[in-house]
Structures are given as structure tokens and as C-alpha cells.
């Protein structure tokens, strides 16, 4: 399985003033912007004495400088460029480098691929979305995705929207993505969903089977797009899932609930999951999803990932 691209940060989180620490599962990664404004990613471990580079700073010329003894590295290659007080002995052999990762920036997200020589094209997001946020969830990556498939309300919070257990269309594969459409209701005051004849809105989700990255579109019964969100769950340290998201509200909103989406905070990824509800959540769409994810994974050609081999 080729090493995937992970959306590890929002563009605005990556700056040239302060390095940002993120992780992809057990791999710590440091992100920053160099002098040209290009986002860079190195292993968050200084090869000198293993201190996290993210506790250092970004120099004016765009190199990252470790905060422990001040060694500086170039972001593109990871090569050591400078040791303080070494004056004229600043030529270092090629092994003097930190592991560098591939970086791509698009649609307001910064993505990394732990395989620096990856042949996979970086992910494209259709358009820039003004809203964005990051949530840390104490739930494993696979479990988070399963919850999204079985009850999005446990992991997402869209103002006034109630997710029902009823699907307009079952989960299926479409252009390599797992796609489904779920009926939703407005507000809290209404007949229970099982006794409701017509639903005013639906949520369409298109999910990457490998990363769980999902485009979610809220649509009303006249085919107006009310809200579009790009949600990127990334496995982080200690089984935490870090979810970055961006969203934009549709231009044509009809009805008070739909207009209410314009309020601040109308979309969010939940920081906490109701564990009591999650435990008894009965598998439904995730059953098929897990099968499809498994099939797609095993069909893909094996490409060794270079993370663990990084010197």
C-alpha cells in the first residue's frame, strides 16, 4: 500500500514564526514555512540529541533551528546547514540530515506524505473554504471513521441538523471513494424520524477509503447546497485522532434553519464523543464500509513506506 497523503494542518496554522508539531500515528512531524513561504516538513526529532525540532525556531533564511544546541536544517532536504560557533567548518557530509517528508499545500490544507519520493499525486480540494478548525478526539482513526458512517452526529455538529438513521442511498464505491447519502431533519421539535414521511435535507459524504478524508455536502430537497465541508481525520499519537476541517456555507439559503447556518460556529467536528452512546451504536453502514475499505486496500499495489527506514 503506497503511503498516503495526510492533511496534517490548516494553511494558517503553518507559519514562519513558530514551528508546528503534528504527528501521523507514531511519527512526529514538524511543519513550518521557509523564506519563500513554502511549507516544509521534517521528522520532529533532531538527529543531534533527539530533541523535538518543533521546540526550536525558524530562522530568517527559512531554516529550522533546534532550540537545544542551535543546529539548523534546510527544510527541502533536511540537511544540516549550520552549527553555532563552528565558524568556517560548516561543510557537513550527507548523513548529517534530518528525515524530510513530502509536503503539498492545497485548498487551505497542508498535507504530508511520509514517503518523500511518493509517486501519488497530492490530494486536491476543489475550492478554498473560509471556515476551518482542528479537533482532537480520543478515539482511534478507524473507529472515528466507522462512527461517521453509522451516526455522523456523534462526531460532527452542524447547527440545527439532526442526522437520521435513514439513508437515501447506501454506501457504494464511486471513483475510488465511499459515497453515501443520509436523510437529516432540522431542529429538535419534530416527529421522531421513524415516523416522518418527508425529510427536508440530506448529507452526502464522499470518503477516501484509506485516509477517511471526507467531503460532506448538506443539501435541501430543492438541490440547493447549504454547506460543504472537507473533513480530514489523521491518526495521531496514543490513538488520538486529529481532525482538520474546512467548510463553506452555500450562497442560496432558504428557510430560517438554513439561514442560521451563517452564524458563527455552525459547523464543528466534536472534540468529545459520547462514549456511552458510541458503545451501543449498532453497526450499519460501517459494516459494508469496512469490507470495501479492506478490498480497496488489498487491491492496491504494495509500495514500501519509507517512514521507519528513514535514517
Amino acid at each position, binding site marked *: 500500500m503506497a503511503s498516503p497523503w495526510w492533511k496534517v494542518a490548516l494553511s494558517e496554522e503553518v507559519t514562519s514564526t513558530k514551528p508546528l508539531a503534528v504527528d501521523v500515528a507514531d511519527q512526529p512531524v514538524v511543519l513550518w514555512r521557509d523564506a519563500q513561504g513554502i511549507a516544509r516538513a521534517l521528522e520532529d*526529532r533532531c538527529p543531534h540529541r533527539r530533541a523535538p525540532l518543533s521546540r526550536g525556531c525558524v530562522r530568517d533564511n527559512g531554516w529550522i533551528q*533546534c532550540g*537545544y544546541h*542551535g543546529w539548523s536544517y534546510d527544510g527541502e532536504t533536511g540537511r*544540516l546547514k549550520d552549527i553555532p560557533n563552528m565558524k568556517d*567548518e560548516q561543510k557537513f*557530509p550527507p*548523513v548529517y540530515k534530518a528525515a524530510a517528508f513530502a509536503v503539498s499545500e492545497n485548498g487551505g490544507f497542508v498535507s504530508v506524505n511520509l514517503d518523500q519520493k511518493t509517486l501519488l499525486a497530492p490530494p486536491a480540494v476543489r475550492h478554498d473554504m473560509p471556515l476551518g478548525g482542528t479537533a482532537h478526539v480520543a478515539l482511534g482513526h478507524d473507529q472515528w471513521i466507522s462512527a461517521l458512517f453509522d451516526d455522523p452526529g456523534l462526531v460532527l455538529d452542524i447547527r440545527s441538523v439532526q442526522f437520521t438513521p435513514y439513508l437515501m442511498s447506501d454506501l457504494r464505491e464511486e471513483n475510488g471513494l465511499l459515497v453515501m447519502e443520509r436523510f437529516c431533519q432540522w431542529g429538535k421539535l419534530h416527529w421522531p424520524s421513524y415516523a416522518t414521511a418527508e425529510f427536508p435535507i440530506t448529507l452526502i459524504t464522499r470518503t477516501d477509503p484509506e485516509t477517511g478524508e471526507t467531503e460532506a455536502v448538506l443539501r435541501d430537497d430543492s438541490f440547493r447546497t447549504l454547506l460543504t465541508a472537507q473533513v480530514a481525520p489523521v491518526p495521531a499519537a496514543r490513538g488520538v485522532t486529529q481532525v482538520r476541517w474546512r467548510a463553506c456555507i452555500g450562497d442560496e439559503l432558504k428557510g430560517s434553519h438554513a439561514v442560521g447556518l451563517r452564524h458563527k460556529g455552525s459547523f464543528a467536528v466534536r472534540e468529545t464523543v459520547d462514549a456511552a452512546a458510541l458503545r451501543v451504536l449498532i453497526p450499519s453502514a460501517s459494516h459494508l464500509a469496512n469490507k470495501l475499505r479492506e478490498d480497496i486496500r488489498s487491491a492496491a499495489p504494495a509500495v514500501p513506506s519509507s517512514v521507519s527506514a528513514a535514517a
Partner: protein
Amino acid sequence: MLEVADRSASSDTDHFDSAAPAAPKRASGPSMNAVNNWVPHDLVMRDSWFPLAHDHAVGKTPVRRAVYSHPFYIWREDGKVVASEFHPLEIVTRDKSPYTDARGRYPVIEHYGLIWGWFGRPEAADPAHLPSLPFLPPKGGLPKHMTATIRFDCSAPISLENLIDLTHADFLHADVVGDEKSDSEEVEVYYDSETITMVRTLVNKSVAPIMKFFSGIRQPTQNVRQVIRIYLRSHCAIAYGRFSPGDDVPLFHPCTPESRDRTRMEMVMNTSNAGTMFRHVMPKAGYKVSRQDSSMTNPQSPRYMDLSPRKDLHSRFDQAGQRYRLLMMDLAARQDAGDFAYRDNVSADCSDIIGLRKELFQF
């Protein structure tokens, strides 16, 4: 048997400084490449005095300390210090360790204003193995404000490696000790089987902010001579800075391994010779500086818990730290083989080695 490390310890690892002159290989012990086989958490030093408490901290009620997770309860009986592995009120249900006498008591000694516990074979306890600290009054009595207890969030050898590598100070502690700018920097390393001493000489270094404010130094630069001397077994260090213009600041910096991944320091800083302001402020700087150190050594520590095939990279400024690793591994290997003898005398006065201005420290 004091050897001079006249080459970088790393010259036969993956290091670029291959022009350094080759010294004769040491007859035994780990090879130079062993520098990377460093798992500090697994090192246990026995037959050694460890500083456990300031004398003023111990009275009739037992205080709790630990060395390598072995409990040390310390209190005074008729004014005399005792250390036991059992609390006097404990209903004993566990076996006595081999490190105490029939009553469960450790050898203990009061010296330099500190209480030292012996960890190892009780019959081998000998005051002759107490580290020499010539800037501390042997009978104690320094004011309390020159002492502190500070903990480090990492294993003890990592804390000591941090201390003996002073290049980090210019970055991590720039706000206290000044930045890295100087006209020249020289590092010399001396060692024997029980100690390592590093001398760092800086010409025209930016003045330490703390001295600017509290000692009234007006010049932009000062010459600095810093000495770090580590007593390997006891995990104790001397940090002695001579600043001209400026003050003479000798610091006792022990790193007692209470547990595998946490370290306790019973610090004593003898600032008796400095100006009033500085005398009071400088010991307090330890609280700030130690947190800065932990901010690096804490995340570092777990990354050294397992042997890694990924070698650390070294520069020529790291020779003291590398030598420290090798000496610790040498000692540990000897102890593993059942050899606990001291081949070098740690209690011999080290004033000359650290360049102490004796006239300032007469007791």
C-alpha cells in the same frame, strides 16, 4: 590517572572531524562506537554515595527519598541521621534488600551540608568515596537561600549529559546566561575512571543578562571560564563559572536517580563571594533554568529508552558528553562483571582541577 581527551571521542564514528589527531586506543572497555549504544535508563551504579537531602530538611520525622526506586527513609535519632529502607511505622511485609544491615539501615553520612546515603554493599561504605566539593563548608552551614530542591523530568544520566554539554546554554538559557556570541571557544576534557571534567573557555562572550542586572557589569562582553566536573557513580556534578569581570559562582549540581526516568537535585550554590543582589538572585535562577532544561530533556528521555540503530550525530563540541557516555558504560560494565572497586580517588581535593580560587573559599 588523569587522562587528557586530546581528540574528539567521535573521530571514529560517523563524524566529519576526522582530522583530529589519533590518541592511543584505551586498552579495555567499550569501543568508541559504543557512544551510540547509550541506554541511560538501564544504568545502575552501586557502591556509591548519593546526596539525598539538605541537612536542614531532616528532623525527627522521617522524610522519604529513593535511589533507583529503593526507599530511603531518613530522620534523626538524638540528632544523628539514620536512613532506613523501612518507615518506623511500617508493618514490614517485604524482604530486606541486600543494601542494608540486619536492621534495614543504610550507611549514611552528613557532610557539606548534605545527607548522603550509600547505595551498594553496606560493608563497602567508606567516607573516602565521598566526592570532593572544595567550595562547600565541610560542616555545612550555608544559608538556606543558597540551597534548593529541583527535579528534572528525565533520567539522571541525560540530565548530566545536558549539564556537561554547555553549548546548549547559549540557546536554551540565553535569557539568563547570554547568547552564543564570543570571539573564541575552547573545550578541554580530562577524565579518570570515576570522574570527568570539562573546561570551557570563552573570550569576549556577551555578558550574561543576570549579571548585567544584578552584578552591575557595564562592559558588553566578559571572559568566561566554565568547569563541569562529574562524579560518575554518585551522579553528582560541580558547575563552576568564573566570569571576568563578574562573579565566581560554584554550584553543586547532583542528579540523584530517584527513579529510572526522573531525577532529583539537592542544589547548593555558594554565592557568598558575590554582591548582595546577585547572591540572593542567582540561586533562584535555577528554578527557571531547570525548567528550560526539562523542556528538552523530558522529550529526549523516552527516545533513549531503547537501543536505536539510528546513531546520534556529533560535533566537536560534544566530546565531553561522548566521553561521559563511554565512562559510564565502562563503569557499568565493570559493575556487571562484579568489580565495584574504586580505581581513582574521588575525595581527593579537586580545587586545582576545577581551578577554584581557593582564597575565596576558606573554611
